[in-house]
């Protein structure tokens, strides 16, 4: 079991980041949706505060994840993949990283343009990255929402592909990403 990736397996750090971030993002979808739809009240403001606080934390985590990704070997794709599938898999992964960055960044722009203050975890004041401007706010909201739907579409593809590998190709794409496999990391391919 290794913290780092090898060219055959995902290390513990990459796996932990993948699943931790995945859960957080699903949580963010729920929080964002709830915050937008809840009637105006102190709870609505708190949903937004948590949505934003966790969203900015996610941004930091994703940046770390990308740095880790670049500093590690990437396991080679399973041998059973069709020729056309590899660039598609690669492109979808790149796009997932792009939306994982663009989503919190666009949220940060909404937040700045709307000019609400935010103290992360009640401690650090989040700086503004855009001027207070209602028109910009509306545009950023549209971007944030559009990115959300792109994200959902990408995830359907992503999860669909993972399940396809597992149940149709019966390769180890999914299992080598699962935590249980870390004990036998770097081991045999199915």
């Amino acid at each position: 079991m290794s913290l780092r990736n090898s060219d055959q397996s995902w290390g513990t750090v990459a796996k932990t980041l993948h699943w931790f971030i995945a859960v957080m993002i699903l949580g963010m979808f729920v929080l964002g949706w709830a915050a937008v739809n809840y009637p105006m009240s102190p709870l609505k403001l708190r949903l937004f505060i948590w949505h934003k606080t966790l969203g900015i934390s996610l941004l930091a985590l994703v940046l770390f994840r990308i740095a880790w990704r670049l500093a590690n070997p990437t396991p080679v794709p399973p041998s059973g993949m069709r020729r056309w599938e590899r660039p598609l898999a690669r492109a979808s992964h790149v796009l997932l990283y792009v939306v994982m960055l663009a989503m919190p960044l666009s949220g940060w722009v909404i937040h700045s343009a709307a000019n609400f203050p935010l103290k992360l975890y009640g401690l650090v004041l989040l700086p503004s990255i855009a001027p207070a401007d209602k028109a910009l706010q509306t545009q950023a909201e549209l971007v944030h929402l559009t990115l959300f739907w792109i994200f959902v579409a990408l995830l359907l593809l992503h999860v669909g592909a993972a399940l396809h590998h597992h149940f149709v190709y019966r390769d180890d794409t999914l299992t080598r990403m699962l935590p249980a496999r870390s004990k036998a990391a770097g081991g045999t391919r199915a």
Partner: protein
Amino acid sequence: MRLPKQSAILPLLALCAGDLEGAQWNVDHERSKLGFIASYDGVGFETVFRRFTASIRFDAQHTGDALFDVRVDVDSVDSNSADRDDGMRGEEWFSTARFPSADFVSTAVRQTGASMFQLDGRLTIKGVTRDVTLPFFWNQDRDRARMQANTVLRRTDYAIGTGEWATDPIIGFDVEVFVELHLLAETSR
């Protein structure tokens, strides 16, 4: 016998003229600011009222004659956030459709220090009238003056933030009101 009489009247006349000319003040709106600092989740945000009128009669030597009458157009609320401003205009907050103005009328003024005074008056916000005491600083240079005052009000005293907001601290209960007026003496003719 005539000389002393004259010498007594002249300064009195001068004083009267001074009263008429120097005691009434107009607000230089370009430079003046009236608003408050409230807090959102513990972080302060500044809000100003873009429109207000003030009728001010004040002479530091004759505080007994002073009168401050200020009317604020609450709808002109501006916290540099369109969403928040709209929120503040709503029923639960300033309810500007029903209560378009906030008013302050002084009842007494007295001096408390070299440039410090105290203003008693009646403040009406959202239809709720309360007696308030406002310490202020007055700095005058002939026909120009600067008045500065700060005080802390409790928003719930004026029904600002009703329903859940009345008991929830996410929008802080204490609101720091600030007034900074740059004044020009009204010149007769």
